[in-house]
């Protein structure tokens, strides 16, 4: 086991290096660079822009250099933990991401829990009681959840929350708590505003989960070992939970690790619509503005999480399914 993990960790390094090169190139593929975005931003609000100012900026950010030199400058610093400065914010990339990371993970984690808590009972129920009224109802709601885009639900709920509950929209805190230091009252205020994003981010995940669990379980329930166990008089609930459900979970476990990067970027569209102070909107604006180092830092982070997540998945899978060996 330890050797397996070690070997996987070793292969991590070249993988990440390749990812960093590819992402650096991809970020720079769109026409123009941050300066062209900057010029357009100025033009929009009618602010004066001067060739001289652009030259100064280009020099300051070493933008005129060829791509491979820029890459080596960047990556040699990244190795030392310095992700560079964001052009747009004029702040270190690490600070910018750190600022928003905690809240992002918290929201994503809550919605993950939310979707599991809701999806597991419903999924199992609708598989065991296939073709019952409850199954049809769950299926119907599940399809609705699957097909409605998150941002649509977000817009509708946001309007309802403002118009009928008088909640402040956008952000995670009511106006009176935005600038307050952390306290119990502020935390509860956040919880009051948190349900909205949690439900919205959670719904599509929940719907998927219900569908997949139901289908996997239906397959298992018809297998001979279940029939045999049932014939031998094993208690129905215990039987279902102990064997078929466990089997039905295996496909989940194999992709569970992929939730890790989702924790950081999954709620992007919802977060933009709801104006949450999370990483999603920051990543989006970095990509739109071609804020090279910020976007690069993000993509590298997501890649690391993805690779680690896959590794965790593999280990988990081996634990859940004894048939898998580390060869």
């Amino acid at each position: 086991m330890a050797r397996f993990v070690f070997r996987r960790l070793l292969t991590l390094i070249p993988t990440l290096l390749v990812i960093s090169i590819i992402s650096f190139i991809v970020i720079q593929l769109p026409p123009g660079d941050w300066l062209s975005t900057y010029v357009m931003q100025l033009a929009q609000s009618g602010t004066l822009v001067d060739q001289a100012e652009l030259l100064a900026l280009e020099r300051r950010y070493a933008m005129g250099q060829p791509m491979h030199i820029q890459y080596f400058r960047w990556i040699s610093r990244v190795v030392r933990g310095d992700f560079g400065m964001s052009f747009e914010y004029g702040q270190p990339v690490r600070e910018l991401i750190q600022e928003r990371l905690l809240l992002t993970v918290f929201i994503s984690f809550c919605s993950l829990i939310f979707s599991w808590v809701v999806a597991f009972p419903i999924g199992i129920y609708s598989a065991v009681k296939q073709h019952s009224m409850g199954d049809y109802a769950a299926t119907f709601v599940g399809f609705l959840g699957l097909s409605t885009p998150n941002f649509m639900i977000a817009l509708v709920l946001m309007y309802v929350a403002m118009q009928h509950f008088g909640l402040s929209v956008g952000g995670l805190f009511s106006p009176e708590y935005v600038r307050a230091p952390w306290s119990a009252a502020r935390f509860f205020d956040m919880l009051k505003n948190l349900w909205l994003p949690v439900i919205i981010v959670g719904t599509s995940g929940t719907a998927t989960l219900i569908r997949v669990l139901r289908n996997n379980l239906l397959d298992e329930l018809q297998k001979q070992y279940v029939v045999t166990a049932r014939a031998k008089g094993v208690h129905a609930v215990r039987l279902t939970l102990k064997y078929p459900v466990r089997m039905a979970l295996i496909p989940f476990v194999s992709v569970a690790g992929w939730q890790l990067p989702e924790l950081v970027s999954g709620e992007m569209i919802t977060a933009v619509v709801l104006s949450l102070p999370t990483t999603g909107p920051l990543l989006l604006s970095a990509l739109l503005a071609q804020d090279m180092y910020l976007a690069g830092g993000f993509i590298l982070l997501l890649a690391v999480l993805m690779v680690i997540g896959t590794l965790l998945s593999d280990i988990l899978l081996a634990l859940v399914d004894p048939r898998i060996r580390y060869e």
Partner: protein
Amino acid sequence: MNARKILSLVSVLLLLFGASASAAEPEVFATLAAFEEATGESIVTFNEAPSLAERVAQGELPPVEERISSEPLVLRPADAVGRYGGSLETIAVTATSNAADAVNIVEYGQQLVTMTHDLEGLTPNLAKAWDMSDDLTVLTVELRAGVRWSDGAPFTTDDVMFWYEDIILNAELTPVVPVNWAPGGETVHVEKIDDYTVSFEFAVPHPTIVSAMGLPAAPRHFLEEYHIDYNPGADDLAGERGFDEWWQLFNYYYQIETNQVRRIEDYPALSAWVLTEVAQTYYVYERNPFFWKIDSEGNQLPYIDEVIRTTVENDEVYMLKVMSGEADIAAFSLQLQGYPVLRRNEESGGYRTMLWGSIFGSDLYLVPNYTHKDEVLREIFNDLRFRQALSLAIDRDEINEILYFGQAIPRQATALPITSFYEDWMGEHYAQFDLDRANELLDDMGLAWNSDGTYRLRPDGRPLSVSIDYVLLEGPKDRLTELVAEYWGNVGVLATPQSLERSLYQQRGLANEGDFRTWHLDWSSDASMHRLPHRYRPPWHNPLVVAGGKPWWDWYESQGTHGEEPPEVIQHLFEVVDQWQQTGRGTEEYERLGREILTVNVENLFKIGTVGLSPKPVVKTLRLANMADEGIFGSDTAFFGPYLPEQWYFTD
């Protein structure tokens, strides 16, 4: 005529001749002495905000008399002398850009000279007086004596000289001097006359510098530490902070980017409010204890304690927050199309929606690419009859009804009617809807219809089809271009609107690509056009963005060594514009040349206009007093700046 001496004359003249101006106009007096002389009133005691009085009592601050400078500017508030307190909530859709309601509220006050909100006159600000030589090459500025930066350090001509000698003339910090400070290609020469007087000498006449100089100064006491000439260890200091070179750290503090928001807390400033807290989703600007303006009863301004700028991620949330009354003042991201919704929520939100004037001579103007790489299209675009036909084919009244509730004005793409050399015929020129005449002009050109009569053919037999490039910002450009394309289709010109991401749009412009390119027509009033006539000569936009005919600009800029030689009329236009920019505003020559520039542009229809002057919704909370009810909102007027936010106050 002798050198013009402009002191508080502006405000006095306003008082004497401004009969049409409503009573609710704040009045500016250059200095306390000028106020006392003009009004006969006198101010003997000075007051300050309770929070500052407390700090004075604790010995943290000098008394108010010492903080307001020895020559404070006096403001008679618009409606009433206000009361201290409150925080002004504003919202911004972007965290980084200056395109936000708060920005000109807090930073506008830092200029030497400011513009009045009607775009007509100039007001003394940090400069109590200025004097332009007869030949318009030497500007002498007299600073207010005893002004201090927000950290208490004195503001003198040393700060101006530091800006000049150590920033502008430093090749590391300023590789190329901005055109504004190097007209005619030669860098300005700045000379310190005494602690409060400084002169700027230019190689060529440069009349626009007075309104365009901003703040040519930097807090020397703060920045010296980061400058290699003053601190040999500046490079090491930069290294410790993660920079490669000293000038990078220096620039981190002294931002050259005019459009980026300052994110450095407690950086010395001269404005009414200074940035004191930067958080993820909001910025706080607190009152500047050393602000150098007082009201007509001796109260130190500003009245409002702090300005908050909250960041949201999109226009919808901005709108929802305004509707629920979470903004005390809002305009930037509001569009006329949202006006009904704003009105509907006025009562529950506790605010008022006003319609202000716009600075857009046309909400959308279209420019064909006169230097198109396709020779056939190029010839068609350069034929005046083609542009006349396309202009006549647009049903501007319908656009106005469909998209602007009939509130905009159908007109040609030209200057605002308030411009001194504007004439009524210019707005009407070829702005009528006349399909027959349009078809006649196109027939004249020999652009025959195809056999089915569905579209016209180019001389080389291919269908006459053009794209209309646009970027979706500042108004409903998607629907506007769709309508225009439909109208042009009616006369046989196949047009396809094409929405482009902003960087791609810019890159295509620089590469001389695209058929028709579009923008909103700002920079179209006296002061703004005089300073930057980009909208009235090739490429009819900033040369870094380009509307059409970039190679013509290259030819002009390189004095004939690059680009393409433009036709006679364009060469003449370039000359007239140059001449006009060196002519003092208000003279007969100025108006004659200005009129000529407009005439050449309109008669040749270099830009095709749609509708313009559509009103801008501006929202203010009912609690806010001394804030104008009418006005013009836009970059020309620096947004809220000239409405003097330092004299706004909350009534409760």
